[in-house]
């Protein structure tokens, strides 16, 4: 009975003590150093608090008087989102086939993956700035931006879905001597179609969201209206716009979730 142990320690997650404490120390040093070098100018902050107060008191109550402008802005955002979704999907389908390891040949696969990675890596706002410089202010730049944004998301997930298809069906089609396009149409498309529809609806929702942001840098839609209001110190109108944006996003999220649940 005396031999029974009376101490116990939880086995550590990282076995090697040197590595463990080294890691803890590294994290601690990083946090302390970055926090210590944060340039917080407290005078500026207290000044900013007054400014924030001015913004908020200027923002209440929200001003819905120029609802015409608001509605126009929203309709434009909606149109941008719709066109970008359709265009994005039209580009995503061939791109997804290019970027699917099991369908595509190596060089094409790398090209497809490369395009997707580039499209995904840049935040829509950066893409929007470039497009605004290239094709001018307005909804066209916004639509192009969101096409790129949609391609990055839809093509990636669609390519992953294509890589998961049941390849037996493809072999069956090949065994009856079907060509490349009929094989895609009969053996691949039916398998990826539900996913494509689901992604399209989801993307429409996120394009609507994103179109509110890219407008801030001049790519049209409700974001442009918001940026104008903010720039002219019309904080009450800006708050009204923000509130409507939040409302529309919630509704659109609910609708898209509902439809995706129905078709799934």
């Amino acid at each position, binding site marked *: *009975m005396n031999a*029974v*142990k*009376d*101490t*116990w*320690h*939880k*086995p550590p997650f990282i076995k090697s003590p040197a590595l463990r404490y080294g890691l803890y120390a590294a994290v601690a040093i990083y946090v302390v150093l970055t926090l210590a070098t944060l340039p917080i100018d407290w005078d500026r902050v207290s000044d900013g608090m007054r400014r924030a107060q001015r913004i908020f008191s200027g923002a209440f109550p929200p001003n819905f008087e120029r609802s015409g402008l608001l509605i126009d802005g929203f309709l434009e955002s909606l149109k941008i989102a719709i066109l970008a979704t359709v265009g994005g999907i039209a580009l995503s389908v061939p791109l997804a086939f290019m970027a699917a390891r099991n369908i595509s040949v190596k060089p094409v696969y790398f090209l497809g993956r490369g395009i997707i990675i580039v499209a995904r890596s840049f935040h829509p706002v950066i893409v929007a700035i470039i497009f605004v410089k290239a094709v001018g202010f307005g909804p066209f730049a916004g639509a192009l931006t969101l096409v790129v944004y949609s391609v990055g998301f839809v093509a990636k997930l669609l390519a992953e879905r294509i890589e998961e298809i049941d390849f037996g069906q493809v072999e069956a089609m090949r065994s009856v001597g079907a060509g490349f396009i009929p094989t895609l149409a009969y053996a691949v498309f039916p398998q990826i179609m539900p996913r494509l529809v689901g992604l399209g609806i989801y993307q429409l929702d996120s394009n609507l969201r994103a179109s509110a942001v890219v407008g801030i840098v001049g790519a049209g839609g409700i974001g442009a209206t918001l940026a104008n209001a903010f720039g002219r110190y019309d904080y009450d109108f800006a708050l009204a716009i923000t509130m409507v944006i939040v409302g529309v996003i919630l509704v659109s999220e609910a609708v898209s979730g509902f439809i995706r649940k129905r078709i799934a």
Partner: protein
Amino acid sequence: MLKITKLTKRYGSGDPVLKELDLTVEGDQLTSVIGSSGAGKSTLLRCINRLVEPTSGSVDLNGTEFTALHRRELRNARRRIGMVFQSFNLIDRLTVMENVQSGRLGYISTWAALTRRYPREDIRHAYELMERVGIAHYADRRADELSGGERQRVGVVRALMQRPEILLADEPTASLDPKTSEQIMSLLRDLASELKLPVIINIHNVTEAKEYSDRIVGMRYGRIIFDDKPGKLEKAEMDEIYAGVPAMDRAEVGAVA
């Protein structure tokens, strides 16, 4: 001694699941409660430590009236009742030792619980119990790496860590294969006599119940209709316990009332 009197449990406005049930358990008896699904076995067990809130009646454990307790008192009182579950209810991602020590959570400080610095006395007790049921070498393993029988042993040790005055076991062998299931039953029987601990077991397997229990309680539709030594459980009694439908039962009650 556990003394249950006139225990009634009703969910919503439906028929009561337990109907004015009386049961007394004492000593180091191993009592098996049998009955078909829906007879109220599991509700009975959970009403004892109030995981399920009884509608009316009394549950008295060694002088403490459980139904009258308020939150903190109830928590303290629950430490005196150990419970073992059908699906083991271990915390899969924690080690066996942490699972076992979680039986002591009611006693140790929050700081000790957080830092896993358990009292030496508890660690020794845990090793003794784990040694007794044959899982001491697993102390540092994660609970989900163990087999079903080993997991249930962890569940039993966790309950015993509480140094309970009574042990409740809700279908402790229903998720196990026949051989492991017999090992767990004989373990529970042996522990009952070693620790002078009354044990109440809900069980579906009547053969096992008869082999390992000192006493068998047969339930049907919220009532105890058999309560005797295992040897007294014959075919006729079995038929009565496992036959019948709720409608018939209600008709019977109506006729009596």
